[in-house]
Structures are given as C-alpha cells and as structure tokens.
C-alpha cells in the first residue's frame, strides 16, 4: 500500500463519517460547521487528485462563502430541525437503492482508478490540451487555458449563472431601494453582539484586510502560471469585504461600496466578457476567438483574451458575492 492510497483512504473515511454525522445531526449550526469541514477535507482530497485549482475553489466556496451564507440564514430562521417523520424515510431509501444500484452497475465497466490507458487519457483531447496548448495558447497552467480559451463558452455560462444568482437573491431579499439612512428607531438590544466593540478584532482584521485584497490580485494575475484565476480571486476579494462588513458594520461597508456601484460592477464584468466575444466577431474571428486580438501573433492574443476574461470573472464574482452577502445581512438588520 502506497502513501497515496493510505492518505486517500483516511480522507475518504473522514468524508463518509462527516457526511453520516451531518445527516444525523438535528442541530443545524453544527451541521453547517461539519459541512464546512466536509468541504475542507474534500479540498485536501482534490489536492491529492492533482486538482489544485478545484481544491482552491472548493476551499474558497465550500468553507468560505457557503458556510457564511448558511450561518447567516440560520441566524434569520430556525436552527433546529424537526424530527424527520417515519413516512418520509421510505422515498429516500427507495431512491438511494435505485440510484445506488445504477451507480454500482455502472462501476462494473468503469476503467480502473488512475489507469493510464483509460479512454479519458487516450483520447486525442489529452495531447491537445496538455501539449499543443503550449504553442497555441502558451501558458503553463493548462486548466486556465482550457477554462478560458478552449471552453470559454462554458466559463461565460458559469459567469451568467453567478449573475443570475445575484439577480435572484436581490429580487428575493432586496435591497431594491435605498436603505434608510437613519439608524433603526428602537435602540439596539444589549445582547446584540457588535464585533466593532472589540479592539483586538478591529485591529487584526483591519491589518489583514489589505493583505486579503492583495492576495486576491495575486491569485487573479497568477492564474496563468499556477493555481488560481478570476473566480477564486473574486471570492477572496468578496470575503475581504464580508470581513469588513462583519467587523465594522453593514452601514460602513455600504458606504465604502455603495449599492449602485456594486450593481454596475456586477453587470460590468458580464458585459466585458460578452463584449470581448462580440469584439472578436467584429475583428473577423468567431465568438471568443482571441487569436484575432493580436493579428499575426496568436499566442499574444490568447494571453490578452485570457487576462481580460479572468479580470471580468473576478469583477463580477466579487461584486455578486458581496451583493449576496449584503442582501442576507441587510435582511437581518431590517427585522
């Protein structure tokens, strides 16, 4: 047994145990924290499976954004689950048996895990993405080149999905109109816990904030050479704002980035991405064909295109995530 499989088995065991515990826990705060742990272990497993970009994203999304959102919603709603009624169990068990049977049946003909001669690795795609991309696109991180260039449309679709989520949350939770500039009429209850009253956290988070934002920029522009890219950068950027909002209060955070400006940024990223596609069409190429951006030097064009795309993703993701957080948090304030 190699070290690889040993670590693998341990991580898988932790994952299964966590998942089972989550299903059994009725206290939802605990379940949410365990879900975060689950994501963290998953991220470790992704690293083990050579998927650094994915691990990075899972860590940022699963441990960061998702957990913050779930905890926020728990604060707004109820944090204890009712006992699951017996009659609800049957459909679940039936579905699990059916799907489990199908998946087990499917696994009988799956190529062995990690095999070099599986269809995935012997398809000509592998050669093109891993080696020809070095001349055609010319950046070492093949995940970035496939993401932003070969499958650029998928990534545009992904950005549209993020945009839709932003729209959905704002349409459901507001704020659709300008928030009242005055403080709430009734005085804040004593038990209400305001982080800004603590000097330690104010100093530490204030000191960390520039580094968080700097790191986001590093991740954004380093995505061509190492793990990272627009999405991860956007999430980190947003988490910086979320930290600021949590510590210094929503009002101050919204004074730093007003709602209208945030909305313009949300649309800006998407418009830049689609606009880039339109521009390549006007220059005589097809949609998102970056080669035409630098005539005679395709690799430069690809570089430029990918940089623009990553920046556009970063802008929209950061502003959508911040908007979503403000929407949830603002809902709490308004009640």
């Amino acid at each position, binding site marked *: 047994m190699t070290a690889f499989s040993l670590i693998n088995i341990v991580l898988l065991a932790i994952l299964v145990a966590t998942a089972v515990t989550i299903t059994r826990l009725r206290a939802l705060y605990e379940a949410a924290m365990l879900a975060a742990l689950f994501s963290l272990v998953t991220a470790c497993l992704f690293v083990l499976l050579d998927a650094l970009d994915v691990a990075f994203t899972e860590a940022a999304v699963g441990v960061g954004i998702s957990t913050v959102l779930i905890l926020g919603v728990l604060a707004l*709603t109820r944090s204890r689950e009712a006992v699951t009624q017996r009659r609800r169990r049957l459909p679940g068990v039936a579905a699990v048996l059916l*799907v489990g049977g199908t998946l087990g049946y499917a696994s009988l003909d799956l190529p062995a895990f990690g095999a070099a001669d599986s269809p995935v690795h012997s398809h000509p795609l592998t050669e093109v993405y891993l080696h020809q991309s070095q001349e055609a696109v010319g950046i070492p991180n*093949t995940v970035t080149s496939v993401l932003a260039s070969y499958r650029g449309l*998928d990534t545009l679709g992904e950005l549209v999905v993020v945009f839709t989520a932003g729209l959905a949350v704002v349409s459901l939770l507001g704020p659709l109109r300008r928030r009242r500039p005055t403080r709430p009429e009734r005085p804040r209850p004593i038990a209400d816990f305001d982080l800004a009253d603590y000097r330690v956290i104010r100093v530490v988070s204030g000191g960390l904030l520039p580094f968080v934002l700097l790191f986001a920029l590093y991740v954004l522009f380093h995505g061509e050479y190492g793990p990272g890219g627009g999405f991860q950068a956007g999430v980190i950027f947003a988490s910086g704002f979320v930290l600021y909002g949590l510590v210094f209060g929503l009002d101050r955070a919204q004074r730093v980035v007003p709602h209208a400006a945030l909305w313009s940024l949300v649309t800006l990223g998407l418009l830049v991405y689609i606009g880039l596609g339109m521009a390549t069409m006007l220059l005589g190429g097809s949609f998102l064909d970056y080669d035409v951006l630098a005539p005679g030097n395709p690799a430069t064009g690809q570089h430029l295109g990918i940089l623009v795309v990553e920046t556009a993703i970063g802008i929209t993701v950061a502003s959508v995530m911040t908007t979503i957080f403000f929407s949830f948090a603002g809902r709490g304030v308004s009640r």
Partner: protein
Amino acid sequence: MIASHYVYWTFFALMLIGLYVVISHGNLLKKLIGLTLFQVGVFLFYIGLGKRDGGSAPIISDGVEVYSHPLPQVLILTAIVVGVATLAVGLALAVRIFEAYGTVEEDEVVERDRADLATGHDGHQAAGRDSGGS
C-alpha cells in the same frame, strides 16, 4: 476490482448520502446541505476520472512527464460555481419562506397552505414584503 474501484464506490456512497438527505429530510435548510453533499460527491467522481497514477497537477513544468487530465478539473470548476449559485438562491428562498410562513419545515408549510385553503385565505403576501425591500 476492489483495489481499482474503491475510490469510485466511496464517491458514489457520498452522493447517495446527500441524495437521501435531500429526499427524506423535511427541513428546507437541511435539504440544501444535502444537495451540497450530493454535488460534492459528483465533483469528486469527475476529478477521479482525470487522475492518473503517478501524475501531477496539469501545470506544465520542466522535468515532469505525466500529468493528470485538465478537462475534468475545468468542468468541475464550472460545476462548483453552479452549485454555490443554486445554494444562494435556495437559501434566499428559504428566508422568504420563513418570513411568509414562520417555519422552514416543508410539512408545516404545506399544513399552513392547507389551512389557508380551508379558510379561503388567498395567500397574498403583504405589500411591504412583496416589494422585497427592507
């Protein structure tokens, strides 16, 4: 078979645990957590497909010959984002449901709708809430 496929089987087990939570639990938030588990199982499955024995991350560097496949990783990056977007929308809906019904248990919500039907109340939302504003 066991040595070469146990990883896939574990991923499938994770998916099934998530699926069970989604279907059988009545709490809307728990359902969403279950959906996340279900999705993560699928993500792991995809990444597992791209893994190659002795391979390293698909970032081309000198002296490395064997790489894992980048395509599944790209797909899953997209899928993770789709997953968190769905989660955000679902959570926003859960908050609104709580505000409209005072509960996030599916069975209780259905009960209250039924009571509405019996009393002839139309379920119109109050004008202030309907605008979604604060």
